[in-house]
């Protein structure tokens, strides 16, 4: 664990030093032909994966428990508001007396791995697999075993949310400014990534995934979290048509 930390920091420095910066990356995938009729679906919101902290001068992620707690609350509230607009019933996952906590955790990890694969091997060019190049192809899933879970019985879909925010520390920002005068040492400040996905609980298929590597909205505030949730839910199936969002 220690070494991973260090390597990540070293990597951040190396990337900064070579002047590569991640281009604006946002992408949505839908299972072709899939629509979610508004007002009918029961969506189970799985425990969101949320990490909020600072980015040290060298680029090391510094976890901040207080910000993460704020973000957890803000995002939950913003999601609840957004869902009313979606016209669906949204319930937070509860293990109850099913004893399925460990199994559901495995499915959450599996979803995480699938989502990362979609992002890595289909969404963005570079590492895109030849089999995933065709347009209108979106064929991913976590297996239909998920249909057998008692604690998910009442739901039609499971919604997974993942948010990772590193706000540039003062040191990082100063380094960024100073480095502007240094040839070849471009330093970026802050990391704001997130993805959200919807899994059909009858078939285990991934019916929608939205990923964004440069998200807006300060999740530490209520307004920022609302903006973040709007961005996370972009392209959500069955979402009522909206006027194009302003300045996002």
């Amino acid at each position: 664990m220690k070494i991973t930390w260090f390597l990540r920091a070293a990597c951040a420095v190396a990337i900064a030093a070579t002047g590569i910066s991640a281009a604006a990356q946002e992408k949505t995938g839908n299972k072709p032909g899939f629509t979610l009729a508004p007002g009918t679906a029961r969506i189970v919101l799985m425990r969101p994966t949320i990490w909020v902290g600072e980015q040290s001068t060298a680029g090391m992620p510094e976890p901040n428990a207080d910000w993460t707690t704020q973000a957890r609350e803000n995002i939950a509230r913003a999601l609840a508001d957004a869902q009313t607009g979606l016209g669906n019933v949204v319930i937070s996952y509860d293990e109850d007396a099913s004893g399925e906590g460990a199994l559901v955790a495995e499915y959450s990890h599996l979803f995480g791995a699938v989502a990362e694969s979609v992002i890595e091997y289909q969404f963005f060019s570079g590492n895109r697999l030849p089999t995933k190049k065709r347009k209108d192809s979106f064929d991913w899933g976590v297996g239909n075993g998920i249909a057998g879970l008692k604690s998910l019985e009442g739901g039609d879909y499971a919604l997974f949310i993942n948010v990772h925010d590193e706000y540039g520390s003062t040191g990082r920002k100063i380094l960024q400014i100073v480095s502007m005068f240094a040839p070849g040492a471009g330093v970026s400040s802050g990391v704001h990534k997130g993805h959200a996905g919807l899994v059909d609980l009858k078939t285990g298929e991934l019916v929608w995934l939205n990923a964004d590597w440069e998200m807006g909205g300060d999740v530490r505030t209520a307004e920022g979290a609302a903006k973040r949730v709007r961005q996370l839910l972009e392209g959500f199936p069955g979402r009522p048509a909206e006027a194009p969002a302003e300045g996002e």
Partner: protein
Amino acid sequence: MRHLSRFALCGAGSILALLGPSPASGAEPGLELPTYTRAYEPRTVDERGVWMEADEAERGLRDSPLRIREAGLEAYLREVLCREVGTERCAGVRIYAMEIPGFNASMMANGTMQVWSGLLLRSRSEAELAAVLGHEFAHFELRHSLTGFQQRRRATDAIAWIGVWGALTNRDTSSTQSIIERGIYRYGREQETDADLLGLQYAALSGYPASTPSEVWKNLMAEEDASAAGRNQKPKQKYTAGYFDSHPTHLKRSIYLAEAAAKMPPGGDARAKEYRAAMAPYLPRFLAAQIKRNDFGGTEHILQSLAADSGWGPDLLFARAELYRTRGNPRDLQVAAQYYREARAAGYMGAELDRNLGLALLRNGQADEGRQSLNAYLTAMPEASDAKMIRALVAN
């Protein structure tokens, strides 16, 4: 160039001074333990952050499919930890037993301890297990996750600034940066030493023999040497740690632990018998996992050392047969068949013994005997998942 590197070294020296004092390790280990705070709550932003990550990681361990949930194992590990560090201290810890065949245990900032099955297989007494658990607990008590994190941040910050300074002034700063980087690992090794010495104090106060922590590392060196020999490599124990090693060398640890232990009361019973009894139900699965590591020399060493304590029982004989069959030289197959039969004679009950004996015999050209064994397996387990495959082998 020479001027430049001297300058770089000088810069590194002053920066290293800024990086703060190294953890206190100079004092002679006495027997007084530091004051311990019960139900400690993290205080600073950094500490709350490190705990938050640990809390998330602990959820992962709690729900992990690798966790050994069978009744009693984790409770037993807790008993050993409590005997080692005292009931007050062990109350702050949750222990997770993980089925991973490597030799390891680790500690997170919030008092989460994970213990790998490979450690449980290799330990020969409660005292040996307790030595490792006490070391891990010392990391927790000394809040090493936090201080390590802060030290890495200071060091990488310095590396980043030096890098930008180098880019601004068009100088090569890589040697300075590398010196600071090495400091990160050196700090980690010093934390390990501190945890070793505090762990030894727990051991000395616990009633377990104070000499055991040193022996743990000797045993591990012996296993690594056996493992190297099994791969036709030279044993490569090092006297001193390399720049990027996370821990001091086993040799160094065993020496300073033995030196410090010599100044302490010798302690009492290592509770080897109790340990063997507690591990007996898990021994077959721990052995099966170890055999899959493709480490003939190391595994044979472990089997020998277990047998030296408890004699060649049915589980050890079966594991030894499996080890030889897995390596699979013609001579190994012959030896394996012999050990399978000895295991059966010693009272090994599982039907898989007949199957594996049959497979070893078939591959060794003893077709009739092999079929006989496979048939015995099929009679005992007609519904086994591999029954069709075995039937096909018998028919050929």
